[in-house]
């Protein structure tokens, strides 16, 4: 396994999610697509922390320095924060979907077009 493969997977997840956000009409599907985008970010963050100990960090002899280890663990910390905040975001999103359904008897994004000039 190499970094390239991980990044391709991450990019693919991110792009599929982006397509879903732009193309789907059902708000729940849009929220799921957003989750997919966040998961793409997560895969990239973990992949970077697993594979890249940037050249500037590794000692001349190839030994991995302490700061390099710290830098690679940062990716995991990044992922944990992304997961927890994305969960909060989804909770808010689902609450809004409920309210949206109550107001309009529909969860289609195309019904969110009352405001036109």
């Amino acid at each position, binding site marked *: 396994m190499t970094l390239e493969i991980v990044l391709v997977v991450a990019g693919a997840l991110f792009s599929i999610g982006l397509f879903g956000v732009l193309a789907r009409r059902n708000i729940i599907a849009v*929220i799921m697509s957003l989750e997919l985008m966040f998961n793409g*970010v997560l895969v990239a963050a973990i992949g*970077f922390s697993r594979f890249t100990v940037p050249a500037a*960090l590794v000692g001349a002899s190839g030994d991995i320095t302490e700061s390099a280890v710290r830098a690679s663990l940062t990716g995991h910390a*990044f992922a944990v924060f992304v997961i927890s905040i994305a969960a909060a*975001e989804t909770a*808010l999103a689902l609450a809004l979907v409920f309210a949206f359904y109550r*107001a309009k008897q529909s969860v289609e994004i195309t019904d969110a077009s009352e405001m036109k000039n």
Partner: protein
Amino acid sequence: MTAQDYWALSPVIAMAALALVLLSADALLAERMFGGKRYGSKRALSWIAVIGLAVPAFLALNLWFEWFGESTSEAVVYGTFTADRFALFFQFLIIGATGVVILASVPYLQQFRDSLGEFFTLLLTAAAGMMLLVGASELITIYVALETTALPAVALAALRRDGFSIEAGAKFLILSALSTALLLFGLVFLYGYTGATRIDEIVARMGALPFESGVPFGSLAVMLSVLLIVAGFGFKMAIAPWHMWVPDVYQGSPTPVAAFLSVASKASAFAVLMRLLYSFAGFDPVAQDWQILFALIATASMTVGNLMALSQTNVKRLLAYSTIAQAGYIMVGFAAVSVASSSDSASAGPQSIMYYLAGYAFTNLAVFLAFAAIVHRTGNDTIAGLSGLLKRSPVLAILMVIGLLSLLGMPPTVGFMAKAVIFSTAVDQGLIWLAVVAVVNTVVAAYYYLRVVGVIMFGESDDADPIKPGAGELAAVSIGVAGALVFGIVPWFILELVDKSLTIV
């Protein structure tokens, strides 16, 4: 964490604590003290909120003047947060905007019925997030602070729970989450490329990494992350081409909330972008790339905002497009500073941005809150609904006209001085074409601002009932207009303050 960490974070902590105090106060006050009459507590809650804001304000003043506690201008909490004067300048702006919005929203609160405590809690939590954001000096902190700002703002937009409000909330949430995902992808690439998340470490590593001369920003990875990060912040700052959500959200959300979003949310996003930009300003080879990027965004934002505003009949949508155009003028300053930072006249550019942001905050709050007071009583948010306002409420009419003229850039208001300063920095940096585009845009903008002014001053209305604004609303609008006039007539007062706040250059 050391004591110094707590001192540096104290205004943010106080703001977050105030949010919790109001949530508890809502639960306690509502039932007992007012004999079960829930709405009776609304004034009490507003007063607790406004007076409580003195605590974070005092703690921020303490950090500015270093009355007690240790000096905190360096990065604290493992380098993730910097309470320097640059951050404090924006924290004052955010605290002020929050206070003014709360003052003005007292009569409006009836619309929130059973979610009164939530209104204050969400507003103050969003403010705490913004105060964290303006001092964040590490990527994960920036992300967390940004979300602490965005999620309460979404809930605030949907708080009225009618069709418009829910619709505004849903659109805001989806586009805000989308922009956060783009931003995150950019931040992760920046981390992957340099192996660091602290901005100072990133800058240091960038210098050591290979630099390709033909590629914008020196490397494709950096270019990708810069574009994604600018796109992510572009949504928050409401600049074209990432402005689609702005008119709908401003129209659908409660007007005081729209005022808060258009000022505090925007200013904090600009602040964090400035901090990022100045950290990278040392790289002279890429200065040209920053300049082109920001000049293009500025042109797009000014032109789209002003042209779209021309055909609006709804005042809130018109003001929304006006804020997009205003963000474009501020981006002119960004385009100018990216080269300026390498020369002697470095301080003129960032000064002009901060001066513009301060002036814009006061002016925009005045216009939005004056309009909120009017629309709350007339229920008509079209331009025609403002006709005959001069007869119905002379005070509000005159205050709103001064605010609109300041947005347009008429002397002696701050709008004129700020535009003059920001456009002249663009000329100084050889961006004459950009300054010309900006001036042409100002002329285009005159059409729609003056149309509203004309309707207010000379329009005829069948409805001649006087509109009587409450004391809180009048005070809030007056503060905004006073700021617009004072900063315009004696600009050196605020320019001196801005000078002292430039700790990031």
